[in-house]
């Protein structure tokens, strides 16, 4: 099998899985459904490994054109948009994450969803999601990427609203879709501008035609493209001001949260920015805006995470916050570390979500962390892997998050578009992260058990093979946890800081920088040409690393000290903060703000258009016109008396008049 065919197979197998499950295996046993769905992702994973570690690692790029998609004449030439896939090192990383983490989550979901009716629907959506996600990262031009970009949005819509019988879930799905759509408009406009500027939407064609002269001549347009892309990123990767959908998206089944709203879909913004890095770096306005948005999101979401009590909500806000870090990384010009953090985050956040799902599953859909506690004794594998995930996310030295996050923070200070203030914001966000993640882990797995036993017996669904005791889940759920935990530890070593590399005697760049060199070299050269070498010193790096480690340790210790006795530990602080606490607990009331400032006025406008515009004005004019005509005609119609004599008189008069006119 040649590489092109393999690449096509990677993309199409999940689609095949979705079609099989969605149409042909509706009545099949659960085992068949799950096996088909998992294989539809696992086989592509194997193929991807062969591709990425084979030709891609040796520097090749695979490109294949499936069919001609759109071709229209454009100003003398043609705008040809084939359905083309291309696999390079950047998409390679994402390919492995999507199929690898995806396979594990499919395996896990098979068990997690075991008591659901009609589970084929779930797996069809999930396979379809993977197909969309793959076309997003494999697309050789923006339109194919956009197919995936909106495709993941739809799958996310369907999966968030999977339990549609509760209207709240369906509403959350709709909210996600609409917020994404706002971002998609940005992406669309960026595409249109590319067509205008380059006459193409193909990444490599744009890269080839974007010269420094072109960029400086069209600086406003380049900035506009960058900002429109940022809007797209904000929608998909849940950045300010469009992040509001992600916390609500937790209404979906937990494997969905792990796969879509942590590991893959939400990181597509980072993928897109890295893909377009060669263009973005031409505009310092766009880059600075990206960095500021990223840093602000990181801190903003982290503050909300501090006080949430729903295990998934905490993780959701932490995802928004971590995405902020990644965007910050891209914004300051350290694209490779944005991608590195994307990867480590995919591991540890998927791990955390699956761990949370494991807990929720064992506790029969209880999500309030105040009702948990001490679970590590009953669920050791889940517990300890969750601890590893927490250590990774808070950046405990040696764990993956430490390396990727610290590199981003270092560049936030010293990168081309970096600024110490960005570092301060990021470090504050990291401090909050340490606090809420340790709080979460401690309240769920340690301390006294606060589980209400009565709760379980009230549960309706029939699970006779389950005892009501909380216990560890079967291997299909724990195996993914263990594997993800392993990667959460070792995943960070691809982005070893230079300072550490010097100490251990490694030369050159770290693994991720080397790997992504072909993708981001243009961007680096542009930045170097425009802003000079923006390297900080080893001392600065050590200093920043030390500071953030110290902050992390202090905040973690503080969290443990505060919640040692149970969830009420934070009450005194909450009371002291008063209104401010409630404001954060209500998520800064951003949803309410949008409702009042955007949604309601638009609704009122719609009503006004209908009642006033259509009914009163347009219909009024339309109906008044004939009424005016009627008024005139009623006068004329009075002449028509119906009396023959009168008609004859008129004829007489008319004849006289006519005769007079003709003869005189």
């Amino acid at each position, binding site marked *: 099998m040649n590489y092109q065919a393999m690449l096509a197979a990677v993309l199409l197998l999940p689609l095949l899985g979705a079609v099989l499950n969605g149409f042909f295996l509706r009545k099949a046993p659960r085992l068949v459904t799950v096996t088909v769905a998992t294989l539809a992702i696992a086989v592509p994973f194997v193929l991807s490994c062969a591709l990425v570690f084979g030709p891609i690692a040796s520097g090749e790029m695979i490109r294949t054109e499936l069919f001609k998609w759109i071709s229209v004449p454009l100003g003398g030439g043609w705008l040809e948009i084939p359905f083309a896939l291309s696999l390079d090192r950047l998409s390679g990383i994402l390919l492995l994450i999507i199929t690898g983490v995806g396979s594990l989550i499919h395996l896990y979901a098979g068990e997690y969803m075991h008591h659901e009716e009609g589970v084929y629907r779930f797996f069809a959506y999930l396979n379809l999601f993977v197909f969309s996600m793959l076309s997003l990262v494999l697309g050789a031009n923006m339109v194919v990427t956009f197919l995936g970009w909106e495709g993941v949005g739809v799958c996310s819509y369907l999966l968030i609203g999977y339990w549609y019988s509760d209207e709240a879930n369906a509403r959350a799905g709709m909210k996600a879709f609409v917020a994404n759509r706002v971002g998609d408009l940005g992406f669309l406009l960026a595409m249109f501008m590319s067509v205008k500027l380059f006459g193409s939407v193909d990444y490599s064609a744009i890269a080839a035609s974007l010269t420094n002269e072109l960029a400086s001549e069209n600086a406003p347009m380049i900035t506009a493209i960058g900002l429109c892309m940022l809007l797209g990123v904000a929608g998909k990767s849940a950045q300010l001001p469009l992040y509001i959908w992600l916390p609500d998206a937790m209404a979906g089944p937990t494997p969905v949260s792990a796969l879509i709203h942590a590991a893959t879909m939400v990181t597509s913004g980072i993928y897109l920015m890295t893909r377009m890095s060669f263009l973005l770096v031409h505009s310092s306005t766009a880059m600075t805006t990206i960095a500021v948005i990223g840093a602000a999101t990181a801190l903003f979401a982290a503050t909300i995470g501090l006080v949430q009590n729903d295990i998934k909500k905490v993780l959701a806000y932490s995802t928004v916050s971590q995405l902020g870090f990644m965007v910050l990384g891209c914004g300051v010009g350290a694209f490779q570390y944005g991608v590195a953090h994307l990867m480590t985050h995919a591991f540890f956040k998927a791990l955390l979500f699956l761990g949370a799902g494991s807990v929720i599953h064992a506790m029969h859909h209880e999500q309030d962390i105040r009702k948990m506690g001490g679970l590590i004794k009953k669920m050791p594998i889940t517990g300890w892997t969750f601890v590893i995930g927490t250590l990774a996310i808070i950046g405990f030295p040696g764990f993956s998050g430490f390396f990727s996050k610290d590199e981003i923070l270092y560049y936030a200070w010293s990168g081309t578009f970096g600024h110490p203030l960005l570092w301060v914001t990021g470090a504050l966000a990291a401090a909050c992260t340490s606090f809420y993640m340790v709080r979460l882990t401690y309240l769920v797995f340690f301390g006294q058990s606060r589980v209400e036993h009565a709760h379980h017996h009230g549960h309706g669904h029939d699970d006779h093979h389950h005892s009501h005791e909380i216990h560890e889940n079967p291997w299909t759920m724990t195996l993914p946890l263990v594997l993800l935990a392993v990667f959460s530890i070792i995943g960070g070593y691809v982005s070893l800081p230079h300072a550490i590399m010097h100490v251990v005697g490694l030369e050159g760049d770290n693994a991720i920088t080397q790997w992504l060199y072909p993708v981001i070299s243009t961007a680096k050269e542009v930045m170097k040409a425009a802003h000079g070498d923006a390297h900080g010193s080893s001392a600065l790096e050590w200093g920043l690393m030390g500071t953030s480690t110290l902050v992390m340790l202090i905040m973690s210790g503080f969290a443990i000290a505060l919640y040692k006795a149970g969830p009420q530990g934070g009450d005194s602080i909450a009371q002291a903060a008063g209104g401010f606490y409630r404001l954060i607990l209500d998520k800064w009331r951003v949803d309410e703000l949008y409702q009042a400032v955007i949604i309601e006025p638009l609704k009122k406008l719609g009503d006004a258009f209908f009642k006033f515009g259509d009914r009163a004005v347009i219909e009024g004019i339309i109906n008044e016109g004939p009424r005016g005509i009627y008024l005139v005609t009623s006068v004329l*119609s009075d002449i*028509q*008396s*119906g009396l*023959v*004599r009168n008609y*004859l008189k008129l004829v007489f008069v008319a004849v006289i008049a006519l005769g007079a006119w003709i003869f005189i």
Partner: protein
Amino acid sequence: MLTLPELGLYFSFLLFLVGLAGVMFRKNILFMMLSVEILLNAANLAFVSASRITGTIDGQVVMFFVMAVAACEAAVGLALIIALYRTKASIEADDLKALRG
């Protein structure tokens, strides 16, 4: 001094005015019918007189046509009046204004 045909023309004009006044001012359909006959006869007289003046035969031919038409008209008209009288019990023209606008 007027010749006979010329007198006939003037007389036909007077006759026409009488007929026209009759149709315009009478309210009884029967009298209106009679007035219409007068109108037709005025026209006949004009035709014949003109025929004499020009010395051609055409006018006299047309007169016969008009007489034939007038006979038909009288027959149809009377039939209509009878039908009207049967349905409306009236032959007043003012009662017939279904076409009023």
